[in-house]
């Protein structure tokens, strides 16, 4: 009852306020009385009648004051204002009546518009979410990211070393605050289940940069990033609710991270999001330890800063360039060629998806145009049937403006109805899109309907109504109103035919553009998938383990743990091979270090020699399915005490040992003394994703370079997921407090690396098919209508002895010529337009001939099929019937 009451109250708002204030309560009581008496289906009836009552009389009562209700049953007196109002109402009613009278046409028009407007709304809601809505920070436009750049190497965005960050923060004056961020994990133990949580290790000024105030307590203070004062933690809202039940007294208590107590100093408000990862808690980033100078060679950090008011991006850039030069002079060895690159954070976040979304928006824009063309066609066909009606009305005094207005009102009504249907479709589409939208960097990303999206839909409706209605309306103005009244008059047909052929041409051209776009992304995707990953992805399971430093003191302990686990797993019959690596492939997890190649002359213009270290266990190459091209893989004999060894990938071998074999050469990390002998060369692994270029990689065995975290790769006999319980059992036996994470099959990992590409391709393909269907329907509609118009003419020709096949051929030929012209224009335009796609293509030229040919042929076939049906109908016209109809 409560619900009915509030529903009715909402509906009551249709009444003017004074009526509602005076009688609202009584109306409500009457309605509720009726509803209470009704049983079963009767309730529905009561509702329906109440709604109808309020629609008619509640809304109607709003006009009563200046437009008196007549108590008489007949009235005729119009006042001028009343008349104007009334013609609008008349046009509206007329439009609705026309819609109902021609239900078939209306349904097709509505479906067409609904599909187009729905697709537009859905894509726009994604665009709005990601590109237009401001980021959830105070004055996001003044937020910047700072990267290390090495222009000589073509690297503009490298993560930053601790020493560089500290120098920048000390020297730069363009920023109100600067903060370093590193994403780590921590084992949270104590009350409740042990958990591995993503943690943001941040400089104390981090929250100041983003303008985030704590909900309770405080954030970090300056000085808490110094060893000894750093056992403090700021809780994210979710963890706080979960662990402390949302108790404000949590501030001041301690939690156990990695087995070490940390004092909670603050709690963050809900709904804060950060550009990197989804950290649940925050620890101070300790960069300064008493006996250890900050590293200039290990690049781990993201650096965020906020520009001072009035400082422009270019001023900040030139200041940072100057600082970079100074540091270069100060540390010629370590900082040679290093600089600092300042980028805008909003661009950083939306940049990667911007192009994709723009392409998609263009695609749905094309679809809306095609839909409008179709609707125009249908309206023109309908207008042809109504020429007499219009002529008669203009003959008895309707002005042209009045008639045009009527046509436009009709289009408006249709477009709004289509838009309403499209909105329903879009709600569903948005749900699908939101679920499929790949994890773009946008931190607060949820695709939702919002007011701007609604306004956009409304604008799309109005625009499509105007577009679709303009031509029929214009056409009507051009026509001599007397013409249709002449017996059998067909004077305007020729003009209309040209017009309609123009529409076919435009439609085919637009469709071919969409098809080419979709074809190119499809080909790119195919090319990407067919890339050799350099490892095997079938039957592989991966999972990650990180050892808490508190319980595994020293590299020995962790190496022992990982070796023990590996040998236990290797003994399992379901597991063919086991290996571990610090940085799993296809994930983008990476590190980069300076290396020195023995006997390699480094010219003054050469950038620093660098390689990406891959610390792997002895069996990793075998377990992952890497291919050894030359030399050997790692062996059990490569122990900590044996001769240090390394394996390089082909790219590194070619780059640093050009013209010679890398085997037997020696290499060392810049910050280590020991030389490592290169014992093998393996095939390039697509570490950064199937569509990313390969960098020099240097593989070293864990035995000679122990790590605290490893991703295991298991080669299974059969289903890799069947190994999960086995792995869990072994890990639990070795250490019950160690959570497994990122348990995925290698296939999943590979699929993730092409997620965005797959998403773009799928959507474009769906849009292309939609466009093709709409275009086919449009071509069919035009040709069918032209054949219907020409039935008498064809009848005469058949009577005079024309062969039916010739008639068919003529219709077919006309359609084919129009389609061919459209195709030529579309493909020609695609040569230019598709250049804009270049950045999202891979391994395919925008002018890929295969794609163009396939698109041309398939579009031509579809067009011919669409023309064939009316052509056959023309052939089968019975001359007698056709002439009798005259």
């Amino acid at each position, binding site marked *: 009852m409560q619900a009915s009451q509030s529903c009715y109250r909402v509906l009551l708002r249709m009444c003017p306020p004074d009526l509602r204030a005076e009688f609202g309560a009584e109306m409500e009581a009457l309605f509720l009385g009726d509803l209470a008496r009704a049983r079963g289906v009767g309730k529905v009836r009561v509702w329906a009648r109440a709604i109808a009552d*309020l629609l008619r*009389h509640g809304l109607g*009562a709003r006009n009563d004051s200046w437009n008196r*209700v007549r*108590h008489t049953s007949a009235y005729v007196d119009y006042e001028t204002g009343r008349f104007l109002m009334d013609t609008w109402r008349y046009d509206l009613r007329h439009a609705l009546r026309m819609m109902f009278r021609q239900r078939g046409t209306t349904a097709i028009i509505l479906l067409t518009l609904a599909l187009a407007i729905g697709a537009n709304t859905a894509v726009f809601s994604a665009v709005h979410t990601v590109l237009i809505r401001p980021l959830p920070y105070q004055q996001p436009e003044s937020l910047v990211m700072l990267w290390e750049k090495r222009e000589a190497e073509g690297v503009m965005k490298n993560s930053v070393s601790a020493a560089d960050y500290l120098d920048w923060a000390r020297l730069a004056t363009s920023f109100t605050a600067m903060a370093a961020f590193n994403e780590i994990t921590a084992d949270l133990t104590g009350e409740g289940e042990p958990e591995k949580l993503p943690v943001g290790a941040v400089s104390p000024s981090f929250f100041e940069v983003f303008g985030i105030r704590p909900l309770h307590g405080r954030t970090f203070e300056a000085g808490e990033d110094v060893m000894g004062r750093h056992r403090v933690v700021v809780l994210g809202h979710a963890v706080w609710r979960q662990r402390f039940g949302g108790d404000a007294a949590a501030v001041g208590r301690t939690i156990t991270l990695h087995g070490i107590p940390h004092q909670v100093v603050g709690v963050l408000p809900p709904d804060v999001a950060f550009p990197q990862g989804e950290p649940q808690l925050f620890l101070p980033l300790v960069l300064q330890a008493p006996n250890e100078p900050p590293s200039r060679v290990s690049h781990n950090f993201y650096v965020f800063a906020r520009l001072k008011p009035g400082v422009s991006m270019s001023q900040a850039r030139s200041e940072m360039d100057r600082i970079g030069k100074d540091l270069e002079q100060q540390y010629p060895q370590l900082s040679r060629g290093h600089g600092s690159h300042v980028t805008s954070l909003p661009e950083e976040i939306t940049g990667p998806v911007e192009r994709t979304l723009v392409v998609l928006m263009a695609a749905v824009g094309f679809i809306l145009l095609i839909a409008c063309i179709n609707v125009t066609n249908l309206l023109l066909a309908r207008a042809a049937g109504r020429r007499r009606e219009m002529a008669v009305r203009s003959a008895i005094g309707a002005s042209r403006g009045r008639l045009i207005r009527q046509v436009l009102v009709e289009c408006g009504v249709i477009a709004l109805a289509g838009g309403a249907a499209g909105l329903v479709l879009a709600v569903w589409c948005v749900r699908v899109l939101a679920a499929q939208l790949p994890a773009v960097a946008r931190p607060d990303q949820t695709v939702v309907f919002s007011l701007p999206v609604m306004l956009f839909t409304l604008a799309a409706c109005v625009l499509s109504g105007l577009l679709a209605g303009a031509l029929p309306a214009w056409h009507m103005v051009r026509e001599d109103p007397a013409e249709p009244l002449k017996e059998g008059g067909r004077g305007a047909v020729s003009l209309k035919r040209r017009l309609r052929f123009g529409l076919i041409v435009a439609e085919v051209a637009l469709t071919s553009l969409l098809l080419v776009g979709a074809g190119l992304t499809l080909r790119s995707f195919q090319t990407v998938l067919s890339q050799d990953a350099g490892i095997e992805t079938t039957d592989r399971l991966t999972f990650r383990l990180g050892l808490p430093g508190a319980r595994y003191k020293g590299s020995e302990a962790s190496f022992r743990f990982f070796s023990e686990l590996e040998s236990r797993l290797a003994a399992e019959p379901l597991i063919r091979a086991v290996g571990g690596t610090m940085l799993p492939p296809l994930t983008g997890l990476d590190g980069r270090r300076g290396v020195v190649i023995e006997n390699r002359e480094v010219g003054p213009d050469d950038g620093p020699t660098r390689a990406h270290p891959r610390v792997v266990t002895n069996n990793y190459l075998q377990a992952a399915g890497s291919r050894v091209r030359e030399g050997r893989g790692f062996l059990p004999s490569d122990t900590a005490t044996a001769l240090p060894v390394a394996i390089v990938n082909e790219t590194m071998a070619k780059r640093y040992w050009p013209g010679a074999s890398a085997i037997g050469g020696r290499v060392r990390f810049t910050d280590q003394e020991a030389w490592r002998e290169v014992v093998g060369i393996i095939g390039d692994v697509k570490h950064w994703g199937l569509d990313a270029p390969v960098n020099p990689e240097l593989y070293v065995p864990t035995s000679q370079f122990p790590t605290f975290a490893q991703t295991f790769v298991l080669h299974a006999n059969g289903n890799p997921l069947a190994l999960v319980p086995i792995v869990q059992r072994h890990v639990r036996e070795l250490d019950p407090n160690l959570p497994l994470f990122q348990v995925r099959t290698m296939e999943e990992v590979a699929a993730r690396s092409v997620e965005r590409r797959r998403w773009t391709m799928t959507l474009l393909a769906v849009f292309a098919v939609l466009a093709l269907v709409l275009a086919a329907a449009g071509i069919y509609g035009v040709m069918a209508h032209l054949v219907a118009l020409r039935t008498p003419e064809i009848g005469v020709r058949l009577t005079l002895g024309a062969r039916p096949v010739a008639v068919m051929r003529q219709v077919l030929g006309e359609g084919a010529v129009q389609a061919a012209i459209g195709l030529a224009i579309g493909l020609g335009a695609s040569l230019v337009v598709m250049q804009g796609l270049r950045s999202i293509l891979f391994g395919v030229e925008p002018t890929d001939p295969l794609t163009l040919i396939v698109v041309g042929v398939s579009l031509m076939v579809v067009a011919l099929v669409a023309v064939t049906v009316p052509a056959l109908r023309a052939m089968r016209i019975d001359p007698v019937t056709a002439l009798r109809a005259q």
Partner: protein
Amino acid sequence: MAQDRDRLDRFLPLKPFVLDVLLELADGKRHGWSVIRDIQQREGGDRILPANFYRTLRALREDGLIAEAAGDASKDPNERRQYFSLTPLGAKVARAEVKRLESLVLDPRARRLLKVR
């Protein structure tokens, strides 16, 4: 007088529903609620719905056919319902409409219809 006639004509013929309302009020002051309930019962069902009814009531008041009457606050101090009664104009209009209908019914042709039944 002539002016008055003009005014009466302006309202005729009345919509049947409007006549219903005026007739209900002919007995004396009533509140809206009981008027609509009586009409609904007599017309057999719920053909007259609240928005329509109160909109008409408001319009009748604006046209001066009915007027608000003081409620019996003594009976129930919480009584917030509004009472309405016919104005002299309303009574005249109702009477004129009834006469018009009567003359129709008394028309010999109409009587024949009744006799046939």
